[in-house]
């Protein structure tokens, strides 16, 4: 049987066994990870994976089973197990699950990809990495260097008992590098284009040259060395300008996660936490200043958090989260949306075939404003420009945060005064976003891929994105963690 027939078999079996709803996803995944470190091959790993995940509603309760074996008999066993688990849930279930209505759809979708990264010879990939990494190592004072590529290709068929049949293929690529300088008392790392393995997009190998790793290697290696002897970021209340992946992570932690409706409803209370964006605050809460506009947009071609349909067959959408500073919308699934008489905005996603879908971010974007970065710096009297995340921490309601970054530039009277090391800043989410008084324009805008977002029990890792330019915030506590 082919994958489509197996998925259909799972649905038919589930319905025969009394399920009121069932969906099945068959997935085939291929991954490649290549890392060069300190002039040496540090690891080349290729991974293949396949399996089926079956989700059923039986007596109003969910059951889920995943199985890597795509034989007919094993698929039937997975369905039986899912039904049995739902039955065991049902007698302790006080309110049957109801799914928001969704019209069935039969379609296919592919992410944009010009060059399939799995067709590019390994030798070429290694040559490029060694060339980049050699530039990093050529800078005097650099102790450790690395450069990496990551590629991902996933094919999936989704079928549900309402008649939907959706085939999707997604190719994603990522690349990054870092240089580290070490002294007896200090370690300083600079990464590019972003820390934690770099920038990721839904794209093929054509992404790699656009990231300009080779062109940027010398600069970041020199910065790593300079940071060892740079002054520590001063402490006190200052204006900060956040850019690139640091602003992306700020959006991820303090907007994306609290807007997940399952957190609001308590589904994550035992692990990831709840949310300060409680239901009474919807359309009734000043999340940020009037220039702050945040959207969840799964439709951006090439962004890491984009897809055609979520993992319960809802089409990718663009939905407002914060409009003119007001909190106006959540990320929802069919179940969570129905509980508040809304429609799902397509945020239900699972890691692979072996996990049940949960509410997830797609691309949560801070829409660009109308400023030039030069003007933002020029009109800052006493501030720090902060880039490239090193550390992140936020409470379980997503209010009290503290972030650290790789590098900062002190701004005095509208001019860059020099680099500072160990920049940290802390705040309370709505106070912080209400202090935002300038956002840079589209010229500086990019969608940063975050390939490692953890949530759920058992924990799942999602690949999401965040579109940002630069944003300025006032009266922010900086130098936290070093001053006390």
């Amino acid at each position, binding site marked *: 049987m082919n994958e489509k027939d197996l998925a259909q078999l799972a649905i038919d079996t589930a319905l025969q066994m009394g399920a009121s709803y069932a969906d099945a996803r068959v997935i085939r995944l291929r991954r490649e990870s290549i890392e060069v470190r300190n002039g040496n091959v540090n690891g080349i790993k290729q991974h293949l994976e396949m399996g089926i995940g079956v989700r059923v509603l039986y007596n109003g309760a969910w059951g889920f089973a995943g199985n890597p074996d795509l034989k007919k008999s094993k698929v039937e066993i997975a369905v039986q197990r899912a039904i049995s688990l739902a039955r*065991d849930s049902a007698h302790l279930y006080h309110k049957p699950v109801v799914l928001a209505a969704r019209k069935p759809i039969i379609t296919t979708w592919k992410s944009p990809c010009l060059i399939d990264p799995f067709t590019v010879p390994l030798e070429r990939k290694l040559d490029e990495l060694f060339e980049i990494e050699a530039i990093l190592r050529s800078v005097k004072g650099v102790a450790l260097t690395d450069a990496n590529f990551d590629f991902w290709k996933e094919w999936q068929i989704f079928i549900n008992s309402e008649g939907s049949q959706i085939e999707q293929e997604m190719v994603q690529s990522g690349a990054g590098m870092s240089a580290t300088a070490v002294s007896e008392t200090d370690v300083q790392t600079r990464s590019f284009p972003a820390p934690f393995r770099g920038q990721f997009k839904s794209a093929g190998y054509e992404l790699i040259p656009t990231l300009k790793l080779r062109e940027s290697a010398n600069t970041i290696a020199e910065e790593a060395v300079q940071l060892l002897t740079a002054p520590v970021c001063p402490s006190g209340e200052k204006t900060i300008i956040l850019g690139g992946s640091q602003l992306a992570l700020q959006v991820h932690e303090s907007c994306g996660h609290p807007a997940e409706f399952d957190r609001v409803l308590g589904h994550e209370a035992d692990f990831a936490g709840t949310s300060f964006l409680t239901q009474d605050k919807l359309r009734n809460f000043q999340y940020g200043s009037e220039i702050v506009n945040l959207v969840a947009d799964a439709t951006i071609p090439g962004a890491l958090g984009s897809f055609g349909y979520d993992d319960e067959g809802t089409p990718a959408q663009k939905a407002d989260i914060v409009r003119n500073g007001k909190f106006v919308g959540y990320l929802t699934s069919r179940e969570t949306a129905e509980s508040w008489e809304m429609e799902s905005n397509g945020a239900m996603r699972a890691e692979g075939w072996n996990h049940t879908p949960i509410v997830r971010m797609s691309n949560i974007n801070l829409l660009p404003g109308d400023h030039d970065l030069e003007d933002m710096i020029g009109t800052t009297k006493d501030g720090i420009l902060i880039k490239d995340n090193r550390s992140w921490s936020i409470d*379980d309601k997503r*209010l009290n945060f503290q972030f650290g970054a790789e590098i900062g530039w002190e701004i005095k009277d509208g001019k860059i005064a020099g680099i500072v090391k160990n920049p940290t800043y802390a705040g309370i989410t709505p106070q912080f976003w209400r202090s935002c008084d300038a956002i840079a324009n589209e010229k500086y805008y990019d969608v940063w891929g975050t390939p490692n977002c953890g949530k759920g029990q058992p924990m799942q890792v999602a690949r999401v994105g965040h579109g940002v330019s630069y944003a300025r915030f006032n009266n922010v506590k900086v130098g936290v963690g070093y001053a006390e």
Partner: protein
Amino acid sequence: MLSKKKAREILEEAIRTSPADETEVIINGGKTFSTRFTNNYISQNGAQKEYDVTVRVAFGQQVGVASCNIFDGDNLKQVVENACTAARHSKPDLEWTPVLEARDVPELDEAYLKDTIDYTPEEKAERLEPILKRSIARDLTSAGMLVNGDHMLTVMNSKGLFGYQAWTSASFTYTAMAAHQGSAWAEYHSHDMADLEIESLAEQAMERALMAQNPVAIKPGAYTVVLAPTAVIELVEYLNYLGFGGQGYHESTTFTAGKIGEQLFHPGINLIDDPSRREVLGPSFDYEGHPKQRLALIENGVVRNVAYDRRTAQKAGVKSTGHALMPPATSGPFPTNIILEAGTDRIEEMIAGTERGIYVTRFWYSNVVDPKQATITGMTRDGTFLIEDGKLSKPLRNMRYNESLVRAFSNVEAIGDRTYGFNGYFGKLAVPALKIKDFIFSSVSEESPS
């Protein structure tokens, strides 16, 4: 569970198939049955089964790694071929260290408990039912997860080394939530479902959640803290991560670099790695098949050892300690079965002996601020209380800490008389309660902003 006999056959077949000079094959995986409850009902019941085969081959110094989650017939051949293709097209790994010679690899007895893996979802629902009913009767909201599973790790190389270990696991995590921001937490992990005293854990959390309502703010600053074992976990995990990996030690990125033999901590601090201890039970060999033995990381407050795999051991001119992670293990080796040894103090006595301080149930979302100073930050969560005159006097709003682990483990005033086992990011760990003086809190969270 993939039996030892079947595992050996698959590994032998993979080794036979490989044309490489050296080949290592690893299979790990198992089954997980998780019952998750939310808002006082079972919200998610899941069964997952997953095994991966990982093949690392070397032609001379050219090395490749490939893995796959299916390893019957052609798929097994394919994964070997993929590793070989990667190796043939790679450049030499100048730090490649030959695979280990054949030797006896120990296997722990009684790590795989049939009663634990056979514990059914129905039994779990029956066990949870009275807890959830009590929660509803007290106007509380309960969320958590009760999980059982089995796991295996088997390793073989082309020199004939073979190791196999199967073990079971059971875990319970529980959050009780009361009105007015009251919440409390309990968790326990073991290889034996019979160890999980979920009723008493849940009962205590429910009582604490009621006590935790209407938390008040206190001024940030340095306080004496009594940390429940569930709070100590996070500190010990980062102590391990920032201090005891052999790769970071020799690259001078750890806070311990060059400090083996130095007294960095309170003399009562003893940190060891030992997979044979019941609280942190796991395979007594690593992903290279190297046997693990008890490794003293900190002895009476003195840094004694760091963890090595064969690559980092060769570079450092020492022997592997058996702490290789899954290939390609780009971050090097780490201890994975860690115990902070118990002291002699009961947690009730720690509280009773504190004139003014803070009781922390758990820390949350901790992260590194400065690796060389071992400074980390994080939040308190699910039950933070002011201690006044030896008693938990009032609930506190959650607070952010910024603290150096070297300072914190030097400022220890009391060590709990019992260790509790938990699952961590790198493996398992067991820790007691701790009392620490001058622990630094830098801010207080808002509970409900307007």
